[in-house]
């Protein structure tokens, strides 16, 4: 499987101000089509909100962008260069990092071990716990993430703290692009504030472009510059945040739902 369409020409992309672009991304799982001809662009330093209902294809798109799975067809262009992501590690080496919905934290390991998961500092054959402990501590302080101790297993942290550790970990390697899958899911107001603060902080620093996937988008609207609505595997709306509102987005989602319902009733 490759990420290039047979017909896709390598036309030059104005990389100025644009860090990532997806062209005609399609993903099929057997006979099920999860994404159809998705086109998406992400500006440098921009925070893009990717919203849509359950099963619309948000997470599928994220998993393609972070190298977890390849698209059936279509291509990804990073800073003007078409790329084929071979693995999560490969994507990470190109500066694309993701925070998954389940956070990819290992409960039994400590905060610092999780921060360095699969990126351990090693003086062969041993891992360098002292160095990792110190760097994890410094990095979390820098990010303004408050954790009682980096030696605590992540099982002991609250939901917000866990999410914050996962986000802090993903910006550890100084990525160009950060993908956040449902960062506010199942989180209280206070917990969510930790994450929104963190995102705002990253945005202010301006080194990283962010795509936030959200199911309940009311919260993320305040940090996003632009919103893409994804419905039935396609992007159906692309607007600047200040040109739209939670009401408009809700109406669109509801309208889509009604349409689908009617169709189902008709065919029944």
């Amino acid at each position, binding site marked *: 499987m490759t990420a290039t369409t047979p017909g896709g020409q390598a036309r030059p992309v104005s990389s100025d101000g644009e860090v990532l672009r997806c062209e005609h991304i399609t993903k099929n799982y057997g006979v099920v089509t999860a994404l159809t001809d998705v086109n998406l662009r992400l500006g440098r330093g921009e925070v893009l909100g990717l919203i849509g209902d359950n099963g619309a294809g948000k997470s599928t798109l994220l998993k393609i962008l972070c190298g977890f799975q390849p698209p059936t067809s279509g291509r990804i262009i990073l800073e003007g260069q078409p790329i084929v992501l071979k693995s999560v590690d490969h994507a990470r080496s190109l500066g694309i990092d993701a925070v998954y919905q*389940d956070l990819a934290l290992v409960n*039994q*390991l400590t905060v610092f071990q999780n921060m360095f998961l699969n990126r351990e500092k090693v003086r062969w054959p*041993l891992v360098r716990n002292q160095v990792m402990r110190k760097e994890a501590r410094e990095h979390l302080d820098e990010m303004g993430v408050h954790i*009682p*101790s980096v030696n*605590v*297993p992540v099982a002991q942290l609250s939901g917000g*703290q866990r999410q914050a550790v996962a986000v802090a970990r993903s910006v550890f390697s100084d990525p160009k692009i950060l993908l956040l899958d449902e960062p506010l899911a199942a989180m209280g107001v206070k917990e969510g504030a930790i994450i929104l603060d963190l995102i705002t902080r990253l945005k202010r620093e301006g080194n990283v472009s962010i795509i936030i996937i959200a199911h309940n988008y009311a919260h993320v609207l305040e940090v996003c510059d632009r919103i893409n609505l994804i419905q039935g595997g396609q992007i159906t709306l692309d607007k600047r945040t200040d040109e739209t509102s939670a009401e408009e987005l809700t109406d669109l989602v509801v309208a889509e739902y009604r349409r689908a319902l009617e169709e189902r009733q008709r065919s029944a």
Partner: protein
Amino acid sequence: MSDTAERSIGKAGAPQGGAAGTGDTLMRVVRVLGRQREATVFIIAAALFLYFLIDQGSSFTAKSNQVTIWSDNVAPYAIIALGEVFLLICGEIDLSVGFVVGFAPYLMHYLIDFYAFPGLLAIFFALLVGVVVGAVNGFFTVTVRVPSFITTLGTGFILLGLINTTSHDQPAPIPASVLGIGKWISNYAWAPIIWAVVLTVLFHIVLTRTRWGLHTVSVGGNLLGAREAGIRVNRIKYGNFMITGLLGSLVGLQQMYYTNNITPTAGSYQWMFYAVTAAVIGGTAMLGGTGTIIGAFFGAVVLGILSDGFPLIGVSADLLSIIFGGAILVSMVANVQLTRLRERGQS
């Protein structure tokens, strides 16, 4: 991952500033138990040793009896348990390793006596066959996705059949060309236990201080998360099956030299079950993500002393199985309860 496990229990509830009165006391008990998980097994082992020492005196302390405990009993269980701990942490198990113990010496014997292999090369292949069996177990478990309990049940029976058919159920003498190498492996009476101690230290370091160990814990603790973090989870599982198989081959050769004989009944299910029992009473749950190498070693010591001591004090060895069974259930309940309490402590 003993020290993280300890820490996780030790710090339970701390970030939230502690729960109400009874919960607090409960947590303190859990904390102590948790931190002392290996210590608990160590104390049981030491207490048993003292009991038989006082009760039986010189018949227990006699060199021949001590050799029986440590080299006949503890060493093989402890060495096989090293592999089982790594597998149990990944959420897998190997039921076939006991038959690798039996098969490896026969393979060596066939290669030398029927195919004229040089001794060292035959030993190499005897060790390799364990790795190959591990890879086959890995293939069916990881790639074909048959649960490892079933996979290794199958490969175990196949190996048993291979041993019995090819040997016609007959023991064989050790080929002359490899007799000399035996002194490096286990001719010396204490050699098996020295191997066991050295390997235990090595595997403890691998589990707690290397990427392989941390990734093994990650695979058991959060399979999807480990995959998302880019860990090659299949490689970890394959590797741990292969390590376990290699340890089975090693124990097989050791026992061959130690007993100065190749027999079709070496190893078998009993040793595998003892090894898993050692791991479980040592504090390794099959719940994934937690386990301790040191605990498994002392678990093997407990089994080794009991197996030797009971006949000494005139108690039927048949009773042992009841005691081992009870010990497994008690340890497992303790493990499950500890995990449950730890989870409660965090909310």
